[in-house]
């Protein structure tokens, strides 16, 4: 007997399909649980932070503590200025990476020469080098040239995080872009630079948005570089959040959770703002023709 025809969107209820759905559901809960736990923790009082699971009296006090003078007293750093410092240094780092990285990615995607792959892997290796391995020489150099605890210093060192990402992601976009378009422009009398700016660049806009967002998130999450290379003035949000972990037997897990949630907002807002480009951008370039 032939199986009944299924309407579009209708699914067959077989034990395997139901089992797969259940597994997906379990995985979904498992993946999101840390986030849920973070939200719950941020709503607990100090007395309830280690003694309760789901039943407690929620309070928003932790958020106001983090943003107030009391938080500054606990951590000796103003959380809002750390937030501003993070936005400026990560934004600056991404901007610099885009200005230098887009032409570099274009060149890497369009021309091959002897050693071009080696060069690309050298750039990528900056991303893989353990930060702790290079931090002492960097610290010494930063002290000598006066870049310790400066925004410029932070923007510079974050290039190790953002630049390889931007170049590698955008290279694959440029490689996927049909060369014929630029050649047609060249035939029409465009210079190479004009063909790049007027023809190639607008077509990879979604890629730029995706690369910029990813680079921003990676820079935002960077911890070791700002921990070692900044002091109290230009410290970033990751370092400010970790300060709430305390010491000497006093850990403010609830305040840490509240601070981490506030700290996660800027990348989230940014992602929502450029969502339009993002969905296309993340999948575009993933499959090569």
């Amino acid at each position, binding site marked *: 007997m032939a199986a009944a025809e299924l309407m579009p969107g209708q699914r067959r209820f077989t034990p395997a399909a139901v089992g797969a759905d259940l597994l997906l559901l379990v995985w979904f809960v498992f993946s999101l649980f840390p986030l849920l736990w973070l939200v719950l923790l941020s709503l607990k009082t100090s007395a309830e932070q280690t003694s309760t699971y789901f039943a407690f009296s929620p309070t928003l006090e932790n958020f106001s503590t983090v943003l107030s003078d009391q938080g500054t007293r606990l951590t000796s750093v103003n959380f809002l200025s750390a937030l501003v410092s993070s936005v400026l240094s990560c934004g600056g780092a991404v901007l610099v990476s885009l200005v230098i990285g887009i032409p570099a990615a274009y060149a890497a995607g*369009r*021309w091959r020469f002897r050693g071009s792959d080696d060069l690309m892997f050298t750039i990528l290796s900056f991303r893989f080098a353990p930060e702790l391995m290079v931090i002492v020489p960097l610290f010494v150099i930063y*002290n000598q040239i006066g870049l310790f605890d400066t925004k410029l210093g932070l923007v510079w060192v974050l290039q190790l995080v953002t630049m390889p990402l931007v170049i590698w992601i955008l290279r694959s976009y440029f490689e996927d872009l049909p060369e014929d378009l630029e*050649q047609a422009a060249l035939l029409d009398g465009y210079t190479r630079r004009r063909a790049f700016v007027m023809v190639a660049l607008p077509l990879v806009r979604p890629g730029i948005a995706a690369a910029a967002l990813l680079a921003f998130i990676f820079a935002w999450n960077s911890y070791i570089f700002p921990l070692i290379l900044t002091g109290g003035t230009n410290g970033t949000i990751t370092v400010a959040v970790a*300060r709430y972990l*305390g010491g*000497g*037997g006093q*850990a403010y897990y609830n305040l840490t959770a509240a601070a981490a949630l506030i700290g996660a907002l800027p990348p989230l807002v940014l992602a929502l703002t450029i969502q339009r480009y993002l969905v296309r951008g993340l999948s575009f370039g993933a499959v090569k023709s």
Partner: protein
Amino acid sequence: MSTSAHRGHDHSRRSVLKSLGLAGGGLASIPLLNACGVGTGTGSSGGASAGSAADEVTGAFDWKKASGTTLNVLQTPHPYQQSFQPLLGEFTELTGIEVVPELVPEADYFTRLNTELQGQGGNYDVFMTGAYFIWTYGPPGWMEDLGPWIANESATNADYDFEDIYEGLRKATQWDFQTGSPIGTGGQWAIPWGFETNVIAYNKRLFDERGVRPAETFDELVELATDLTDRSAGRYGIAFRGSKSWATIHPGYMTQYTREGAVDYTSADGELTAAMNSPEAVAFTQKWADLARNAGPANWTSYEYPDCTRDLGNGSAAMVFDADSATYPQNQPGASAEAGNLAWHPGPAGPDGSYATNLWTWSWGMNSASKNKLAAWLFMQWATGKDAMNEAVQQGAFADPVRESVFNDSFVQTLGAFPGYQETFEKVIDSTTIQFTPQQAFFQTTEDWATSLQNIYNGADAQSELDSLADRSTTAVNQG
């Protein structure tokens, strides 16, 4: 078209190479190679104090001598730091020195401090340090010898009274950096600020209910902890640290290890020989691992001190063998479910009645690369002086103060609801110091020791495990 593309390619390659050459030349002109001097430091080493910056301070003592200086202080969040933070304004008023504190989370504190000292950047003048870290940071010359500063009457207030700091603590922060030399020799590399003795804190409510008393010998402790363990009721007998870290060895384990008559190393002709495999050490270590298995927390091998004190506070652990200052906050009103029910006891005496106790002290060290050494010394002197410490103690979270006068004057007054705390302290203080032999491979060898302890806990043969640990440790400590 392809020709034009190639031409563009050649052109841009030449330009790139040209630009790279220029950039390379520019970079080479920056004297980065000076950085090769990393770690050589400018301070004295080996306990010698020739040419100390303290000698440049002359004339009558005056708190205002470094007025107008800005002092950068590296700290980690701690009740000691929080007790002093409100007092920093008074220090500025007294000296005219502005203090800029920088807090680094405890987990990353020593990574940050290590980089700072190794880089000799001098960004921080004064820093919090533990005594064991002197054995790593002192020998390369990263720390200033404070002996000449204490001795100089022009730099040190006549009322400072360094001898008022408990002797065991003063000695714990001195060493001459020679393998085989004990603590208490050589320079004074840090000034103790707050400290902790490792003793038993117990749930008095539970003990009273069960009609039991704290154990006086180690065998009694094993029996008591086992009796108090009731896994079905979510309660176990005793908590102590068990993670794979040097910090597992130094509190309860090292305290009782020493009381049982064991030592970590023996010394002869400037060479150390590890003694973790001596008969008394093996017997004790086996009992300790068994105690953890039979009466300790279920996931003991990940236990650190906040886990131990949390379990005491919420009533799941009947006893904790760890720092008195870490269990102290759990008894403050509202701090935990068992607040008000806790009490303290020196812990088991050794077979010969020994109450030898290992300590941890948060101390102040001075960066040898500091450009503001006088201001740094005035700050250290103020923070470890009687007046500020008395004030900090009155804030109610400064356990234990390092000065005998402050302990007897202000601290004792805070101990009304802390049964046995004072008696315990008085019982052990004369035999409290660092019980380890100072050596530069301390963290490596002590972490290795914790690994062996875990292996024994997991069923490895104690004798062969500790024989192999002793072999490795002897090699490690005599290198260099």
